[in-house]
């Protein structure tokens, strides 16, 4: 038999734990935690360790190699030169379209049409684009037929091919996120602004835009990370030896052409650090603006 004082103590520990939100239910977190540890934390830590144990040289030799070889370090600029403009353009296009779509009755059909490019995957989109935007494709034929150009416009196997592909595959995602943030702004706020004399541009400028800006920052981060890790379309639609030699191609070549997993890991870590740097910068800027609820009612 357990002495009374001991069982009382046991109970008080349980009470203390449940006071902090820990009880039997908390154990349900364990499987997910194991999955995260096994599939995310461990590979990341292993990759970091791998990058610090190069084939030759000290622990930072791989990083020294990367930043001393222009063929390698220039991939950072090339990737940013693709991913930043694409992400910004996607946002700039998504906001006005979402503003209009938000007022439409049949949003579901449009949403479905927009989700299709996401489900098709980048490879299929790239294959389609090679034909459509190619020298003999419909796009150029129409331009020639309309006498808008004298010869076919080169939109494949270069920077613009990858740019367009990222735009097509990235837009639906950006748009849907933007739409959800816009729909989250209480309709009465815009109505109130209108009764106070604000025209549609003023309503956007002073009410809607400041309220969706924090959401746009998140959308920017997510879209940017997607665009920064571009690989299939850079290979299929771009010039993978030239202007679209993005950082993931460098990592791929290190791993599967030179079989230097250690250098490949170092490149992957550099990728992660750059993405993290931009995301942290954007989110830090976000703390400077209003981030509360987008409703005017009593909370």
């Amino acid at each position, binding site marked *: 038999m357990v002495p009374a004082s001991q069982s009382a103590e046991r109970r008080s520990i349980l009470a203390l734990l449940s006071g902090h939100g820990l009880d039997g239910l908390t154990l349900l977190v364990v499987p997910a935690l194991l999955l995260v540890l096994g599939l995310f934390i461990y590979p990341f830590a292993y990759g970091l360790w791998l990058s610090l144990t190069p084939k030759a040289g000290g622990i930072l030799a791989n990083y020294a190699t990367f930043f001393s070889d222009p063929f390698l370090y220039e991939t950072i600029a090339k990737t940013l030169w693709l991913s930043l403009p694409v992400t910004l353009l996607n946002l700039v296009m998504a906001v006005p379209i979402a503003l209009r779509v938000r007022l439409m009755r049949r949003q579901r059909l449009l949403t479905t049409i927009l989700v299709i490019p996401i489900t098709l995957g980048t490879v299929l989109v790239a294959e389609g684009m090679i034909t459509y935007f190619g020298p003999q494709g419909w796009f150029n034929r129409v331009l020639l037929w309309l006498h808008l150009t004298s010869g076919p416009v080169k939109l494949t196997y270069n920077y613009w091919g990858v740019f367009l592909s990222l735009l097509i595959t990235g837009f639906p995602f950006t748009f849907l996120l933007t739409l959800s943030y816009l729909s989250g702004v209480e309709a009465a706020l815009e*109505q109130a602004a209108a*009764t*106070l*004399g604000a025209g549609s541009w003023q309503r956007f400028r002073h009410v809607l835009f400041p309220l969706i800006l924090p959401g746009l920052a998140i959308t920017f981060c997510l879209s940017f990370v997607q665009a920064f890790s571009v690989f299939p379309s850079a290979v299929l639609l771009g010039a993978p030896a030239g202007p679209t030699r993005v950082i993931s191609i460098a990592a791929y070549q290190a791993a599967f052409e030179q079989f230097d997993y250690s250098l490949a890991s170092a490149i992957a870590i550099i990728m992660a650090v750059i993405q993290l740097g931009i995301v942290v910068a954007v989110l830090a800027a976000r703390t400077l603006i209003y981030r509360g609820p987008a409703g005017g009612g*009593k909370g």
Partner: protein
Amino acid sequence: MSIHAGQFRELRLERLGRTFGGVAALRDVSLSIAQGEFIALLGPSGCGKSTTLNILAGLLAATSGSIFLDERRIDSLRPEQRGFGMVFQNYALFPHMSVAKNIGFGLAMRGIARDEIARRVGETVALVHLQGQEHKLPGQLSGGQQQRVAIARAIIIEPPLVLMDEPLSNLDAKLRLEMRAEIKRIHQTLGATTIYVTHDQEEALSLADRIVVLKDGVVRQVGAPDALYARPDHLDVAAFMGFRNVISGTVSRQDGDLAGLTVAGGKQVSGQARGRLAMSQKAVMAVRPEDMTPSPDGPIRAKIISSEFRGREFVGFAMSEEGAALAFVSDHPLTNGARIQLAADPMRAVVFPEVS
């Protein structure tokens, strides 16, 4: 005080109508409102009162009819062109702007100079008693304070018309009484013409110069609070004005404004005749609980179901012989299940022809 109400002579609603998907939410609403009036649109939910307000604000288009401000037709103007101030049910304050920015928003949209805005915001803040809160965000204010910001924001633009959509419904009972007095005070200070939507008859009676009772999208009665309270034109208006007891019978006597009804049990009741009554016609008498009391020779026979102690008096609930639920007041405790005879004050009861 340099804040004024916008000037006009008359606001006219002519046969306004609105349908939603083929269903009429509003039918032929006509109304003429003079400068400075406080009008309450009163009715149960779904009666069309908010629809009317939104049409006036320009947030909703009317399906038919027109609105005139003096000689100018305004129903096709966008809300930002009308310049009416509106107080929304949930206040709709801009959550990312300070109290001062919220209040000054309408002036900023009109391109008024910054120091002029600051001066008028200061005056308006003083008018609604919000001194010291100027730099807070709406989320940091209490419900009553948010309400004051919403009112200040609407009146600072000196609108010809202030529209209020159930502005007190989100407040607790005590605050509601306090803000009701505030709305009255601000109206009396500025004299701004106000249209106030509510489903609370007490709010309408205490605030309005005239009450417009709406039901099923139709205007049922327009009148001053005391007139509406004492002499409703229809049984449904009476029910809304607190005439909870409805007793049916046949018209057996008419004497000027007084009509007598013979009720179940053969006895006679009487009340003020409303509408055209003919002898032997079926009719109903409506009376408020506070105007019905137990009386040894009372004409209405009923059985007590339950009672409540209300401090000054007891309120009894009873079932009449013909099966109508009745409420009445009594100075003495009541016994459940006991038979009772009730009498109504003829001067405070109203008689309507029965509509089938």
